[in-house]
């Protein structure tokens, strides 16, 4: 194709969107039947380059519509409107074990979408594309305020939606990797929920005292939300992933201070010592560290460390005492935590206790451990820094990319509905049935 007279047009709408919004990619005015590659390139905060691409053939009027036309090959295939984002992977030559996570949520992810001639699979950086545009993907909607919280020696960040409020609130907990990870909380605030991201493993107070936090730490975070003038104190929920689930379940069932309106547990378990806080939970996990397996690719598989599900009630949260609706999200290919086994046991406990109407389980075949907001790349395994050993090793999370990405999309949508129905509605807690999910 003569570059000088190339009239091919590339359009991506919206050019500035939230991370969980879909976009439409249209290629127009290509020659009829033209073979082309649509390519996405992203340079992350750590300086690594990620790419994805799909092979398309223009129709008789020279158009390719990524939401309607099948990709014939590349990092994804078939009709996949968002394939260029969820199938992003480190470019060839990158160091192994990378995971894409946005730490600064105040600026967007920039993705360059380009069209290359022909069905290409490599060497994109050495070629000049036919056209390219830049797309911004934001974790924060305009008007969301980001407020660092340090009172009561907490390490947290509060995200408030725009507007007068009051808003429902949410405590947002990540897992065993620690750090103050803000992106899910900022995204939830973009959906109208005042969200508090809390660091409970690498917080300043832990670094200074050398001791893990106790349960009061979480209750203090809850109180910050409850007493905030723009938060509706009786509409506070809690969301945890992985180790964050353990804390969420403990607080939902046993805390006298926290009156949670609802809870969400992603890729977690109810197996933990009933008494005790973070330290005791971590010790319990380390007990059976010898059950760690190693995959053929030298990745650590930790799921057996917590198995079998104990019958001793001192070592699992008494789910029969739960009084608020609970959404449990599990990936059936979770290689890190036995989330499926735990979900089954929780269901049994609740059926016996008569409160199973509070429970909704979303179980996704071929999805792994890291069930994150949608349209972000899937990491089947990645480098993980163990808090215990301070070593970095490659851990197997599990999941098959396409199925995992579909699971992320579905789970996020259902999670938002669950939160909105339970935190916004005026009905009494405990009566909302979500069987339609």
């Amino acid at each position, binding site marked *: 194709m003569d570059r000088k007279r190339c009239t091919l047009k590339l359009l991506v709408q919206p050019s500035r969107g939230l991370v969980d919004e879909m976009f439409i990619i249209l290629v127009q005015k290509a020659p009829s039947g033209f073979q082309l590659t649509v390519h996405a390139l992203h340079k992350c905060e750590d300086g690594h380059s990620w790419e994805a691409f799909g092979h398309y053939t223009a129709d008789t009027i020279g158009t390719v519509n990524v939401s309607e036309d099948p990709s014939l090959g590349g990092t994804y295939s078939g009709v996949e409107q968002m394939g260029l984002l969820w199938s992003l992977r480190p470019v060839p030559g990158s160091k192994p074990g990378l995971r894409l996570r946005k730490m600064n949520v105040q600026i967007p992810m920039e993705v360059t979408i380009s069209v290359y001639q022909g069905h290409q699979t490599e060497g994109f950086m050495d070629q000049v594309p036919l056209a390219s*545009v830049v797309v911004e993907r934001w974790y924060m909607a305009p008007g969301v305020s980001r407020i660092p919280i340090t009172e009561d020696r907490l390490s947290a960040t509060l995200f408030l939606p725009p*507007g*007068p409020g009051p808003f429902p609130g949410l405590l947002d907990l990540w897992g065993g990797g620690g750090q103050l990870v803000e992106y899910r909380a900022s995204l939830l605030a973009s959906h109208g929920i005042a969200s508090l991201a809390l660091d409970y493993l690498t917080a300043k107070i832990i670094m200074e005292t050398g001791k893990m936090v106790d349960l009061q730490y979480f209750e203090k975070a809850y109180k910050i939300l409850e007493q905030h003038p723009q938060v509706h104190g009786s509409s506070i929920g809690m969301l945890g992933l992985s180790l964050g689930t353990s804390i969420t379940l403990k607080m939902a069932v046993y805390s006298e201070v926290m009156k949670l309106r609802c809870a969400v547990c992603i890729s977690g378990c109810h197996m933990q010592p009933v008494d005790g806080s973070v330290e005791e939970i971590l010790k319990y996990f380390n007990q059976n560290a010898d059950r760690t397996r190693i995959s053929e690719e030298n990745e650590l598989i930790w799921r057996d460390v917590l198995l079998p599900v104990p019958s001793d009630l001192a070592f699992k949260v008494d789910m029969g005492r739960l009084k608020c609706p609970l959404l449990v999200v599990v990936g059936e290919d979770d290689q890190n935590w036995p989330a499926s086994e735990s979900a089954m046991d929780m269901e049994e406990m609740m059926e016996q206790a008569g409160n199973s109407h509070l429970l909704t389980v979303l179980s996704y075949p071929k999805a792994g451990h890291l069930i994150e907001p949608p349209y972000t790349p899937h990491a089947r395994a990645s480098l993980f820094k163990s808090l215990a050993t301070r070593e970095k090793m490659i851990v197997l999370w599990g999941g098959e990319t396409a199925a995992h990405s579909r699971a992320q999309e579905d789970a996020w949508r259902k999670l938002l509905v669950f939160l909105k129905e339970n935190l916004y509605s*005026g009905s009494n807690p405990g009566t909302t049935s979500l069987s339609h999910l």
Partner: protein
Amino acid sequence: MIVTLRLSTMSPPTSPILSVQPTRGLVDEKLKVVVESLPPGSPVTLHSLHHSEDEDYWEAFGHYVSDFRGMVSVSEDLSFGGTYTGKEDMGLLWSMRPVPGSRKGLRLRKMNVCSPMLHNISVYSGHVSEGFREQTPLTSVLVERWYMAPGVKRIDIMEKGVRGTLFIPPGPGPFPGLLDMWGGGGGLIEYRSALLASHGYVSLAMDYFNSQELESADLEFKYFETAFNIIKEHPQVIPDRVGMFGLSLGSLVTMHVAAESTIVKPRCCICVSGSHFYPRDRTIKEVIMEPRSNSHRLRIDENNHHVWRDMWIHLLDDPSKKVDVGKINCPILLVNGKDDQNVPADECAEDIALLMNAAGNGHLLSRVLYPDTGHLIEPPYSPHFRASNFKAAGVATKTVMLLWGGQTKPHSDAQEDAWRKILSFLQHNLYSSTPPRAKL
């Protein structure tokens, strides 16, 4: 009269849910504004508030009644009152006006295009017409409106005496180019160029008033040719696909260069709200001063607004005072408002058509003339000003309130339609691989 109806007390937090899409969009993109979870059949006011770079507040509002699903959809429902009425999906933007108590003669223009315009869109209970700042809305969202798409590059130009800003679309190119010129107010106005670059054109916004060297018409003419060539010679520009875009005085310059230049050959021209009164061999400064020598033709209306349109009309009869449009040999689009009170755009367009037909190049001319539309035909959804403060650049005159004309609703419709036509004209003449045809 304020009609305030209190919604029955609901156990919080069943507040209505306001969604505006997109929350970050280009200024010429449409907004979808939907309110849900309202009590059925309840009166609400949708309000938009903007705090300008000049620190003034602008607002617009519409009165709605929710349907029996508890919903209001601005693109589908009627506004019963406010700054706009009827089914107006973009009324919350184009009907904005300075809040009561503001300074007079304001005009809303974004000078820093690297940051977005921020609009607070809120829902108020009842049909409210004033005192918005003293009330708490039920809910609100913040919306960003951008003149620059992501990836558009902004480059300061200070080259060969030309001062301006170049905007380059993202991607390898090469792209068609545009020389973008505003009117007699002068200054370096970037927003239209930024928006054109967001649509795929390398666009140079030019400041053509401040230079001291432009004392002779000859030097001045060369200045425009130099600016045109800066674009043409840019490595990312297709050299034979460079056009010219002018508004008001900028239109005049466009027609003059297209007709007289032996060096510069624009591929196409867009002239918005322009006249073709360009006394041959005179500088622009002299052109601006011309009406002042005819100040007996200046009218001041009942609001103390200066009306300039009649100062020029006598020039229609004198060919030496007009651009020789018969020499234009590229497609040219004239966009005018019938209620233009600054320039007799209607009469000029008629005369240009006559002259071009007589010269045999009438097939290159396309014209659109919008009823009840004034002089300042800008990118869509920006507020309309029937009159505003104006100070002519580079000449020692004082600030006056100049009447531009137009009625808000028809003028806003015209801006939306004109922009669409302009973009399709540019697409056809600068992007298409078939030979250019003037007729739209």
